[in-house]
Structures are given as structure tokens and as C-alpha cells.
């Protein structure tokens, strides 16, 4: 049975695609080194427009007459109060643009003006080398380093020196952990139990926050913070899984990038921590099956975040403690054997495997 894979890799070759919604202005070139958060490309998407009916405004008799009087062409930019058309003569009638913008079309005596746009900025989710640019829309960055995938993020990207403020993997971040020494750093903590601490972290100008878990009631508060918050294991107060915690602890002091994007299974995107290392890593394959001996993490209530070793796998239906029947594994978690459905397990790939590109 195809396994779900969670990448927690001390060293890997990482390849990530970045994509604008439409082709735009690319600001980097192949072979260029970028840092996490660097602007890769941008585009303006139109979101508001206004139509000026010149025929009606000037009391003309036909669209053809209007188009004869219109003083601009498609693609021209209009400034505040620019004249669009004028009848001329002694008692000239004038129609001006209601707002500055770009003329999109002139048709049937009407002028369509784009007055508002939405700026889309594509930032690098990890530091590395730009290896590929396609159609001014897709940019691929490759890097070598530690990769730790997470479960949830507040949608922001950031980087800084990694600082571990967690004495144990389930210690909570408190205001006492925040100070001048945490400015512009990526902080690690097991969990955070209150909104006030998140707010204070913003005032302390941290560059980002890595938590093992967060109570779901804090989702709105986390989403409005200006810095990225990445949660490795899920919702509650269970802390960081053991393997991720070890890796983060050993990498303390290193430049760390966090891409706290929301998980999108259809696009294969999930929140990630990348710690660039000056060593060549190997590419990896996310496809495998559940087998005894694998280290796994449970991703569902009530054991979410717990890690253990698979001792036995049954692809035939097994009776679960819930009374349901499903393929399951016997997993030893903290010396206790538990029967967990296979669909509730993610295989933690901590070894580099045969090369294959990831999306």
C-alpha cells in the first residue's frame, strides 16, 4: 500500500518550483544564487476597471463619431483628470478620465480603463540556485541542506539564524524567551499556548517561529502575525516530534529558511524548513510502501505527532480499537505497542534515497 511520506532529512538535494498565476516579470536568471524571501518575479493582475461611455457623455450621435474624438490609444496610461475626448470648437465639451489607469480597450464609443491592479510578488521559499525559468511563469530553485516538512503554516516566508528556546520538545514559548537576542532569529519551541506571546514575538521582531503544535483556537492569531509561523506536527499542545526536534537542536545557530505555506496536497506543496548546508545532498523519492522497521509519525487524533517504529504491517483489514476495520500497523510508540490505521501514518524518510525530482 502506497505510504504517505514526511521528509525529515539531515541532508538532501532539494528542488522546488515557484509559480506565478500568469506570466510576469522575472527578476532572476538561471545560475543566480538567491536567499529565502528574495523576490523572484512579479506581475500585476487587474482587479478594477471603469468604462467611460463617450457617446453618451458628449451627446454624440454615433460610436464612430466618438472614436474619432477619442485622443488616446489602447495601451496608453492615463493620469488623473486626463482628457479622454473633446468635441472641440467654441463651446467644446470634454470628458476626462474618472481615475488614472491603463486603457484596455476602445470599442463602440466606450473606453475601458483598468484603474486598480493587484501586485503579485513571488518570493523564494528556500535559499539556493536558480536552475530553470519557464515561460516567465515558473522558476525552479535547487539547494542542499536539511529539510524538515511541517503540517501547517500561516502563509509567510522568512529566514534567520536558528535559535532553540525549547528545553524539551514540548516546552511552551513564553514572553521570557523573547528579547533582544531573539531579534531577526528563527525561534524554535514545542508549542505556544496564548495569543499574547505570539503578539509579543512580533514586537520582538523575530524572523520566524517554528512550533511543534499550536492550539487550533490560535489559528486566527497566528495568521495575522507579520512573521512566518510553521507548525511541524499539528493542533494541540503535543510539542515537536522527536526526530525534527533533534535535527533542529543540532542545527542551532545556522541560517534557516522557513516557508510556512499552507499545505496543498494537489500541488504537492507543504510547509518546510530548509537549513542550507555547504555539502552536496542526494535527491530523494517520495514513493514507498509501509514496511516493518520504518519510523513513522501518526497524523491523526488522538496520537497526532507521536513517532514510533512499525513492527508489523497488515494490508488486510484489521479490527481497530474504534471498532472499524482497515489496513493497519502495529507501531511501538514510547515502548507501548499501538494498532494504528495505515492511512494515519506518515513514513519519516530520514535517509537519502535514489534520485528523483520533486515538484
Amino acid at each position, binding site marked *: 500500500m502506497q505510504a504517505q511520506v514526511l521528509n525529515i532529512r539531515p541532508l538532501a538535494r532539494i528542488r522546488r518550483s515557484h509559480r506565478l498565476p500568469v506570466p510576469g516579470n522575472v527578476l532572476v536568471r538561471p545560475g543566480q544564487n538567491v536567499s529565502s524571501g528574495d523576490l523572484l518575479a512579479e506581475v500585476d493582475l487587474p482587479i478594477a476597471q*471603469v468604462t467611460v461611455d463617450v457617446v453618451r457623455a458628449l451627446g454624440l450621435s454615433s460610436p464612430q463619431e466618438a472614436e474619432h474624438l477619442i485622443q488616446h490609444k489602447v495601451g496608453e496610461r492615463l493620469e488623473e483628470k486626463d482628457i479622454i475626448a473633446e468635441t472641440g470648437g467654441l463651446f467644446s465639451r470634454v470628458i476626462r478620465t474618472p481615475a488614472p489607469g491603463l486603457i484596455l480597450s476602445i470599442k463602440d464609443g466606450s473606453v*475601458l480603463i483598468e484603474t486598480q491592479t493587484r501586485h503579485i510578488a513571488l518570493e523564494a521559499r528556500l535559499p539556493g540556485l536558480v536552475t530553470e525559468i519557464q515561460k516567465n511563469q515558473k522558476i525552479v530553485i535547487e539547494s542542499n541542506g536539511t529539510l524538515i516538512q511541517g503540517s501547517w503554516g500561516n502563509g509567510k516566508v522568512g529566514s534567520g539564524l536558528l535559535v532553540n528556546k525549547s528545553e524539551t520538545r514540548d516546552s511552551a514559548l513564553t514572553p521570557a524567551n523573547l528579547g533582544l537576542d531573539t531579534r531577526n532569529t528563527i525561534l524554535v519551541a514545542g508549542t505556544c499556548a496564548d495569543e499574547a506571546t505570539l503578539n509579543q514575538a512580533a514586537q520582538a521582531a523575530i524572523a520566524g517561529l517554528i512550533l511543534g503544535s499550536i492550539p487550533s483556537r490560535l489559528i486566527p492569531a497566528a495568521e495575522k502575525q507579520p512573521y512566518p509561523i510553521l507548525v511541524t506536527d*499539528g493542533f494541540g499542545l503535543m510539542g515537536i516530534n522527536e526526530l525534527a526536534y533533534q535535527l533542529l537542536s543540532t542545527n542551532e545557530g545556522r541560517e534557516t529558511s522557513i516557508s510556512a505555506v499552507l499545505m496543498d496536497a494537489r500541488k504537492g506543496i507543504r510547509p518546510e524548513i530548509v537549513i542550507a548546508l555547504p555539502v552536496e545532498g542526494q535527491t530523494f523519492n517520495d514513493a514507498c510502501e509501509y514496511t516493518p522497521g520504518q519510523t513513522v509519525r501518526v497524523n491523526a487524533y*488522538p496520537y497526532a505527532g507521536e513517532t514510533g517504529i512499525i513492527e508489523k504491517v497488515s494490508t488486510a483489514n484489521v479490527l481497530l480499537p*474504534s471498532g*472499524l476495520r482497515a489496513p493497519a500497523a502495529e507501531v511501538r510508540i514510547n515502548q507501548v505497542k499501538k494498532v494504528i490505521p495505515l*492511512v*494515519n501514518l506518515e513514513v519519516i524518510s530520514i535517509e537519502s534515497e535514489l534520485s528523483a525530482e520533486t515538484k
Partner: protein
Amino acid sequence: MSTTVLDAVSLIALDLGSVNTRAHLFDVADGQYRIIASGSTAATITAPFFDIGESIYQALDRLQKITGRILMDKEANLILPSQAGGEGVDRLVVTYSCGKPLNLVTFGLLGDASLESVNRLAATIFGKLVESIGVNDRRSKDAQADAVLNAKPDLILFAGGTDNGASRSVLKMADLMCRVMQMMPAEERPAVFFTGNQALIPAVKDKIERFTTIDMAPNIRPQIDREEIEKVGTVLSQVVNRIQSTHVSGLDRIATICNVPPEPSASAVGKIVRFLSVVNDPQKGVLSFDIGAGSSSVISGFAGKTSVNTFPYGTGSGMSEFLKKGRIEQIRQWLPKGISLEDLRDALYQKTLSPSSIPATKEALLIELAVARQMLREMVHELRLRGVLTAGGYDPILVSGSTLTRAASPQQILLTLLDGIQPAGITTLVLDKHSILASLGAAAAVQPFLPVQVLESTAFVNLATVVNPVSEGRTGAEIIKVRLEYESGKFAEVDVKKGTIVALPLKQGETGKLYLEPQHRTRIEASGLVEDFYKVNGGICGVVIDGRGRPLNMPQDELKREELYNSWVIALGG
């Protein structure tokens, strides 16, 4: 009617869900079409495959192993048609619910005519109606255009004007759409589906096809008092297929070998509901519920007319959509055991991170069933608001989706359904335990006898016949006397009190005569009339009299709630 060997066709139906891919094999056995076997595997529409092809292969491979039949050749292609040696199958149909929820925008004229109809049409598609614009919309044209742009529609449904009726307003709306299209990059422009005044087709097409694809369908409202949603829905399915093919990698590939185009699951179930509404009790409708992982649906059928209603929430990837409007407190009211609001919220949000996970513990299962109850309540409420519930009640009520059909015990399933749906009158709850309803709907286009014969087989399980008396009496008062006479001549009698639920045994396959004597201020059927006796069919939980009242109110106190829940499970034989 039995099916001869000469005219029998073997058929594989693939059902592509967001969590599971199922392959069902149907063939003739003992002169009747039967479901022979089913193979199920995890869907591969997400990482690492991002294509349904792999899960289809795995599901078919499983089917091969279960049946011992060779279905695929050495290149892993499905053998179509079947060969002299028995390899392969004759027909292939596909249903799917794994697509992306579409952002829908509707345009129509009057709120109680074409706009209302096109909004009902939108409800049949897996997606969200994000914006709706009618001729009486008070917003400026710029504001309307902005609203459509912000909606980021995948599809615009455009209705308006009876045939040879209103034209100017319809054409103005087409102009507005063109303006909006001009604002969008070409690759982001939504398709347009026109189902309005047929006389305007050339003019509308001429305007819109300069900017985007436009599909034409019969008028959804050809006359002011006539609505043709089902006819239009069939055409719409093909448009939806085309759009979903861009989101479901592999769908267009499998479509090339299907006997009929792939069909959205809800629409396929609608065919079965329509059929049953014609052949069953003409005074009653047929209802079908399906709570899936990414989406849910309720389909109501009465006298050959159906109303397909999809909802963009479910117990897997659809959970985050369901939680957007709060609802944690309402879900908690269904939990018999005390669980803090915080823990419940965390458990539910955790599900949004692992949509394919299943309940591993008893408590996790109770939480999932509590969510299912609340979803059922809301779907019924929405149907009431849309005016599609019939006053005469429903029989049967069909139930699909592993959330509703896989609970640990039949009593758990029954209580979940009764608490959530809170049906009226007398009805039979039928479980689609193999999740084949949608497949039968799709198969109907290829072999009409197949769904009819499979529906009559043991593929579907009668959970219970349920009697729902409504009483104004006080709790604890006797509200109805019940006598069930068995085929053997024996009988069982019980006096049911208000606030209780009682089960009388009657096995699946057996029938009985049910005599009901409502007491003071109690009635059963919506009409208030009660026949001498009702012929009832047996089920796993027998005949159940649900005297708990409507609407069902759960105690706020956790201990009382747990006590009550346990008493009901025991009463039902759990």
C-alpha cells in the same frame, strides 16, 4: 426478468473519490446482474503521483486478485471488450467526486424565475456559488464586474428569458460578461454555460466566444412556470467534465475508453433516485444522502423529478470548509462523552491536516459521527430553505459514503442517521454498503437492466424501518401502541413513551404487519392519516419506533447526555 447469457454484458465501474478509488465488477450470476466484487485503493490524485492512473491500476489489480479474473493485459491496459477466454470486461463507466470544488457565478434575470433556476442548477455541481447577478441587482455595473472578478469563477452559468421572451436584458448581461473577460488574462477566463432564451443563442455566442468557450444548453426556464433542470444538468455534466479534466490528471485519458463520458457522482446517483421515485410509493419521495471526504450531497426525488444538491464539505478534505462557520458547539452537542471544546476543536482541525485519516479510537469515531450528524442536520435544513422537501415524507432514504456506512455497529449508524436526518413519517433506511449507487447510475446508460437487478439484490442493506411519531405529550407519557405481527403468526407489542426509542426485531428478508395506535395528540404521517396496518420489511435493526420527538434536543449536561445516548444504544440492541 432474468438476463440471458446472450445479452449479458460484464461491466466495471470506477468510482474516483478524493480519498479512495474503487473498482466494482458487475456481471450476470444466476440470471441476474450482481455486484461480483469490489477493489478499493487510496486515491493517487495527490503526491507523489498527481494522477489517478496509478490508483485505477491498483484498484483493478485488487479486483483481479479478489476474483481471479484477468482484467488487464501485460501492458496494464484494461481488456475491453471481454475475450472468449473470459479475460477483460465488456463495458467501462466512470464516476468521480475527486475534482476541485468549482467557483461558480450565476447570471439570470428575475430572482423568482431564471435566476432561481440557475442557482438551483449551480447547487448540483460540486463547488460554491460565489456570486449571483440578476437583472434587479442594485449594484453599479462596475461593482458587479468587480464582484465577478473577485469571485475568480471557474464557470459562469447564464440563464434568462423564456424562449422568444426577454432579449435586451440578456444581451446586456452578456456585454457585462464580455467586459469582465477583457479584464482577465486569457488563461484565467471561465467557461460560460448558456441556458436561456434559445432565440438569443447566436447573438450571445457571437459576443462571448470572442473571449472564452461558451456552451449552449436547452432553456432552463422555457416558460415562466416550467423548469428543466434535469435536462440541462445532463448537458452541464459534460461541461463540468471538461473543466475537471484539467484538475484531475488522468480523467481525460480514462474517458477515452469509457462507454459513456465520466459523470460526477452526485449526478449519477440522481438517476437512481429518479428511477426509485417513479417505481416506489407515489405518495412519497426518495432521498439519498452521501457524506464524502471532500464533498457531500443530498438528492431528493419525487414522482420522477429530482433535485441534486451538493455541498462543498465532508469529513476529509472538506472538513476545513465545514469548520469555517464555527459549528464546534453544535458538533459537541452530539458527543455522548465529555470532551472539552478545546480538545474537540483541535481534533477537528487536525483532521484538516490529514484528510484521509480514519478514527483509530472509540472517541475519535464518536467525534466523526458527531460531525456527520451535524452535517446531516445542516443539509436537511438547507433543503428546507430551498423548498425541495416534499410534505409526504420519504421512503426509502438511501445512505452512502464510508462515514455513514462504516461505523463500528449498525446501531451507531442508525442513531447517527436518525439524529442527523430526523425523518418524518414511516421510512426505510437503506445502506449502500459497497458505495455503488453512483456506479449504478452511470451503468444505467450502458445496460439499463443492471441497476434495476442490483438494486433488488442483497447489495443494499435495510438498516431499519423507522416510525417517527410526533407528539405534543409530555416526556414519559405513552404516545403510541405498536403491534408487529410476524409471518409465523407470532407478534410483539410495545407501548412507546415520549422521549424513548424502541426496536422490535424483524430480520432482513422478512416482512411483518405493523399496527399503530397513536395516543392522544400523537400523529405519524404528515397527512395525519394512519392506515390499518403497514407492511414493513425487516432490517438489521428491525423496526424502530423513534419517540424522542422532533426536533431532537440533546441535554446540555454531559452526564445526562451520555446516559441518554447509552440508553438509546441499548434500546436498539447495541
